[in-house]
């Protein structure tokens, strides 16, 4: 029998924090996946690491300074990676892979020179139980603004993802919406890093979004399902981490990974089950 952890304040904080990240992060993840930018999401998540490390070295274990560092680094790498892809002839995925390896290496070196092993673990793997209530208010603000802005730019963003040439022929400012979207991605990755760790900050954005692809072909349902999956798997991950005294990031990502694996096997669209045991064909 599994022994549930005491339902104390730190656990509540952890649950509220991941709920907030799920609400705004999962819809962004759906767009990242549909725009074939999953790898870009990963790069931004990892780019946060050297930024938080810089914040840590300059101001100690202050969440504000570390988040600010993460934001700066996230924006910087999002812009640099776009430029490198745009202006060099190397393939985009190769550029991005290099970016995130370098970012992780840089961050780990900075932290191992200046921080303790516990600091390193918290930043890399997340420690949702350490989120203070003041931080929750900032996170709630970020989530609210993200959802509002995303609702506002929803239609042009959909068109920009689906048929950019059409938007361009309508003089629709596709670049502006792309830029706003990338900004939201960076901000939400930083929002999530304390709970998930910089190594896995993209997990709550991407895995529920990918999983939802197996169940529906309607964009609004896909977004709703991704949000629900993100909330449930992060809550499950938090309980697991608290019970077994493990870092929260890997627990959440493994929970999400389990739903992904299940969907790969039994999902409605494109799963192994649909491939090898198709339903009887129709008359017309």
């Amino acid at each position, binding site marked *: 029998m599994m022994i549930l952890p005491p339902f104390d304040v730190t656990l509540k904080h952890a649950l509220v924090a991941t709920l907030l990240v799920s609400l705004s992060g999962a819809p962004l993840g759906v767009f990242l996946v*549909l725009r074939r930018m999953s790898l870009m999401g990963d790069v931004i998540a990892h780019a946060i690491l050297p930024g938080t490390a810089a914040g840590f070295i300059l101001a100690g274990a202050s969440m504000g300074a570390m988040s600010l560092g993460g934001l700066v680094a996230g924006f910087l790498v999002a812009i640099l990676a776009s430029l490198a892809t745009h202006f060099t002839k190397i393939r985009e995925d190769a550029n991005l892979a290099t970016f995130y390896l370098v970012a992780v290496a840089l961050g780990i070196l900075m932290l191992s020179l200046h921080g303790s092993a516990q600091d390193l673990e918290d930043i890399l793997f997340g420690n949702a139980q350490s989120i203070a209530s003041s931080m929750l208010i900032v996170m709630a603000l970020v989530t609210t603004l993200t959802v509002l802005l995303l609702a*506002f*730019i929803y*239609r*042009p963003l*959909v*068109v920009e*993802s*689906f*048929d950019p*040439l*059409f938007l*361009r*022929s*309508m*003089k*629709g*400012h596709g670049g502006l919406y792309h830029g706003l979207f990338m900004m939201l991605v960076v901000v939400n990755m930083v929002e999530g890093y304390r709970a998930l760790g910089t190594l896995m900050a993209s997990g709550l954005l991407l895995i529920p979004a990918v999983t939802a692809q197996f169940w*529906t*072909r*309607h*964009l609004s349902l*896909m977004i709703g399902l991704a949000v629900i999956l993100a909330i449930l798997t992060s809550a499950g991950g938090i309980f697991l981490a608290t019970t077994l005294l493990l870092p929260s990031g890997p627990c959440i990502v493994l929970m999400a990974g389990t739903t992904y694996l299940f969907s790969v096997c039994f999902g409605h669209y494109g799963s192994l089950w649909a491939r090898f045991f198709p339903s009887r064909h129709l008359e017309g």
Partner: protein
Amino acid sequence: MTITLNNLTVGYDRHPAVHHISGVFPSASLTAIVGPNGGGKSTLLKAMVHFLRPLSGSIDYDGTLPQEIAYLPQASQVDQNFPLSVIDVVQLGAWPRTGAFRGLTKAQRHEAYHILERVGLADYAKRPVSVLSIGQWQRVLFARLSLQNAHILLLDEPFAAIDNRTTHDLMCWIKEWQNEGRTVIAVMHDLTFVRDHFPSTLLLAREVIGWGSTADILCEANLAKAQNLSGQWVEHAPACRRDER
């Protein structure tokens, strides 16, 4: 709505794909642009839809706004796996009237359904676009074009890989657009089809070989000339001084 090309040169990296062309697409005309591969047909359309800036010369739109020009790219590079329904795509045609943020009115929704009915895909309204065949997809794109209510329509090889019946239906629609006073310009490959359906032709092989009534332009002499002129890429071409002469 008239489009006038004034000594227009368009290209990539300073190399012209369309070189010093001048002429007029009159209001309510139906023109086919034909010519060899690499002759600059698609490039010319991209310049007219403001995707490419002219290297020199200019295009005069006679007051037509960019939103009043509809463009159908070649073998549309849209991701057909995107989770949108067929009616969603058709309704995008209302963009010039709704812009990015306004919702569609009831009348506009109704209009979209009506147009979808016209292309014979009413049953597909709520289906995802991923289930459409190439021909059905082209019908959906034509439905969207129609809802755009544009003054000028630029079509890049609209019938490539499309069967005869669909081609026939869509061509009827193009002629209707022309009768409604819209200017239609289409890049085409099938010369027999052009002779049968397009009153005017622009024969383009980087430069204008001929521009006028289809019967006059598509003669053996012109076609042979176009073939010989078809564009080679000259890596170290000297700067063009034609305007200075």
